């Protein structure tokens, strides 16, 4: 198929000839350029659907971030404004999410609720990740009895059901945002510690750590230069995945009446206070906060999935059947 181009203009060598045709061929994968080879895309088709999922997830996350950051300062309305003449209105143009049993606009309430839930989720995930990474890295890097002691403690804590431990912790404080954050963080760092420890243990046996030791690196330098940077992507991934988890936890605590004070709009509180109206057949006060709990979860999971794929790309030499 590919006949060599004869009678080329003398001098059209090197980069100039290189640049032109390549650019031309870029738009469509199957486009004949001069007499060159006919290129067709290779690789798996799966990647394109995955890209779509990642794009949708990213768009949702962006939308949520914008809503949560911009709506409260810009909104002209008061989310707490009670309007008893407009209570329990179904969704309409004036109130896209409807109104609750005291006539507050649910869209606004939901945005405020999402804001609080996200904040709790983010801070709790961050605290849990820092704690888990520190403990896991220390256990993995030091090894020996430190490792055994720490991991035994982690196992013991893990054997207590999350929610139960969480309830126990919030019960010790007055209701508020911080007790919830602490409760969620304290119950969630354990899995991160396990992941990080396992990763550190596997990194510690790599020849490049041997080479560093042989090159005179101290324990501290090996940890800071090779081990911790090596586990950060995994820890970051765990942190991202933990945000929705922590949001659900906050909601669960609030739903049980143990989390945030009832007047504060959080997704959990919104669902909790809508229970009564749901029995009366009014579905919207439950549905929308519920959706706002589920959709960000899926979007974040979608982004985290792409991240995970980047962490473990298929190595070229690893041609699996």
């Amino acid at each position, binding site marked *: 198929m590919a006949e060599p181009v004869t009678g080329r203009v003398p001098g059209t060598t090197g980069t100039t000839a290189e640049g032109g045709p390549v650019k031309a061929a870029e738009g469509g994968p199957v486009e004949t350029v001069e007499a060159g080879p006919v290129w067709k895309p290779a690789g798996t088709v799966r990647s394109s659907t995955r890209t779509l999922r990642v794009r949708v997830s990213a768009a949702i996350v962006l939308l949520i971030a914008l809503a949560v950051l911009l709506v409260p300062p810009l909104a002209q309305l008061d989310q707490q404004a009670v309007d008893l003449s407009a209570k329990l209105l179904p969704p309409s143009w004036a109130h896209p999410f409807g109104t609750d049993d005291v006539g507050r606009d649910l869209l606004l309430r939901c945005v405020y609720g999402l804001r609080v839930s996200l904040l709790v989720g983010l801070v709790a995930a961050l605290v849990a990740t820092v704690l888990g990474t520190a403990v896991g890295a220390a256990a993995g890097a030091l090894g020996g009895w430190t490792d055994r002691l720490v991991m035994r403690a982690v196992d013991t804590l893990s054997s207590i059901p999350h929610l139960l431990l969480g309830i126990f912790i919030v019960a010790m404080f007055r209701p508020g945002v911080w007790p919830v954050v602490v409760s969620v963080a304290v119950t969630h760092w354990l899995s991160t510690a396990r992941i990080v420890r396992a990763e550190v243990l596997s990194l510690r046996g790599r020849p*490049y750590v041997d080479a560093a*030791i042989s090159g005179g690196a101290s324990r501290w330098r090996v940890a800071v230069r090779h081990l911790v940077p090596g586990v950060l992507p995994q820890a970051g991934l765990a942190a991202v995945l933990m945000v929705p988890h922590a949001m659900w936890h906050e909601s669960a605590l609030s739903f049980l009446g143990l989390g945030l004070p009832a007047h504060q709009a959080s997704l959990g509180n919104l669902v909790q206070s809508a229970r009564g109206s749901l029995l009366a057949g009014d579905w919207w006060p439950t549905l929308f906060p519920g959706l706002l709990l589920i959709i960000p979860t899926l979007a974040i999971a979608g982004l985290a999935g792409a991240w995970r794929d980047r962490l473990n790309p298929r190595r070229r030499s690893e041609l699996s059947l």
Partner: protein
Amino acid sequence: MLELTGITAGYDRRAPVVRGAHLALRPGESLGLLGPSGCGKSTLARVAALLHRPDRGTVTLDGRAVTGYRHRAPRDLRTSVGVVFQQPRLAADPRLRLRDLVAEPLRATGRRTEADAAVAELTERVGLGRDLLTRRAHEVSDGQLQRACLARALILRPRWLVCDEMTAMLDASTTAALVRVVEEYRADTGAGLLAVGHDPVLLARWCDRTTHWDEIVDGTVKD
């Protein structure tokens, strides 16, 4: 002298992979250690580089009996043995650029200021192009990466070199080039070499003398 006496080592005390190995290397001497795959010669190489604590036996380095391994070995002792491994991919931190990979030992030993000059000199000596120095491990070939790993092993000017199957992943030309670099370094500094490998032709061509695994392992040591 680099002397290994009665070394028994492994990863499980009940089933050591090395049993009663003896090895002595004079300063400036190059010794090729031949052995089949999986015989434990890599473990012995790690012991010789003070990277693996043997279950039994002693290592003596320039007259000093080694009492600790890995981080427990004094820094000047463990940096006196340079080590090159079989698989450059595993021996290079994937996050480091080649320049930092080579300079790392100088930085780790507080000689940061010498790094630029030493890296420039050594990378040229191992045949690593300047434009490759800003790349990370996954952006270069096995051969290029192994060149960087050899430069890293030489940058502290060790008195001993342990090359564990250094050329097993490499093509003939890169093999010959890296062996030449090692030999030039040894001619410069008088460093001793323990080259572990499985290719008798290569080791015979490279080293002053070669010995076979069976000859250095004590047959009488049983369980």
